[in-house]
């Protein structure tokens, strides 16, 4: 099993990409993806997209992460309102994910302890500022394409941007955004920018006490 998802009980029926519902509570169901159905990641992506198009909502969880099926059912039984609200919010949507990391490497560091740490701190600050500038540019592109909901992160190695978009328009928007990314790379040539997706809207599943 590669993932658990929450869907409406009515929709959680076997239809090529899902096994049978494995548990249900209060009108929602926990459904499972069997890894034996997928022999590579492309097949898995195709399956997830089918799920996105077919089900009202589908938010995968890793079975490896811990929730047993019984735990998932218990959780669903006590969080129906929240789960339904999230499913309603994400219905018909997927996400594009963009990961950006700088290509350039820095020169040698000072050999003195204090100077070494100060230089490391300076570089971290510089990377953060460059990440902010890049994200600002990319978010503007996304907004121009009508993608208004996004989640951005700046971390130690670069930046990440998740964008929520209607799954029906995912292919077209991805192509358009890829063009925008290409133009951004002319402005930010020292960045490696990778665009992936569409994926199920993992980054927008906002329940705080998820299993």
């Amino acid at each position: 099993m590669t993932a658990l998802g929450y869907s409406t009980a009515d929709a959680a029926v076997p239809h090529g990409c899902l096994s049978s519902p494995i548990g249900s509570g209060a009108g929602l169901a926990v459904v499972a993806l069997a890894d034996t159905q997928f022999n590579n990641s492309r097949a898995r992506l195709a399956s997830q997209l089918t799920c996105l198009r077919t089900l009202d909502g589908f938010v995968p969880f890793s079975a490896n992460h811990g929730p047993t099926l019984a735990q998932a059912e218990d959780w669903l039984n006590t969080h129906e309102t929240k789960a339904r609200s999230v499913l309603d919010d994400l219905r018909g949507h997927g996400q594009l994910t963009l990961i950006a990391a700088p290509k350039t490497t820095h020169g040698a560091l000072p050999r003195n302890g204090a100077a070494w740490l100060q230089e490391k701190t300076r570089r971290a600050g510089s990377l953060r500022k460059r990440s902010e500038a890049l994200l600002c540019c990319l978010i503007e592109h996304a907004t121009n394409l009508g993608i208004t909901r996004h989640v951005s992160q700046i971390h130690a190695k670069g930046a990440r941007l998740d964008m929520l978009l209607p799954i029906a328009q995912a292919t077209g928007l991805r192509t358009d955004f890829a063009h925008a990314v290409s133009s951004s790379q002319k402005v930010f040539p020292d960045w490696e920018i990778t665009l992936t997706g569409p994926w199920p809207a993992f980054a927008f599943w906002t329940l705080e006490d998820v299993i």
Partner: protein
Amino acid sequence: MNDLGLSFPPDLLAQAAQKAADAGGRIKIDPDTVEQDLARVVLGLMAFLRQLMELQAIRRMENGTLTDEQIELLGTTLMRAEEALHDMAERFDLRPEDLSLDLGPLGKTI
């Protein structure tokens, strides 16, 4: 984002599961290079921990909560720890970049 300023992709769980599934859920060990492989894992974890400490030190630098003595001490310690790790890696014919463990969708450790 956690206290150390690290962040992890929100979809990592599902992707990690896929990675595990793709790998058949097994760790591959080559008997001819087992010493080097083990050294890579152990040193890779040590390098990862060292980097976490470095990130925390940077955060404290940015917050201005370190004295000059602490900056000198932390900087020297972290710098020498990095050198020691690279020296040990070299003994096993490993390059510094080999200490970056690929955690699949989580990315690389360092």
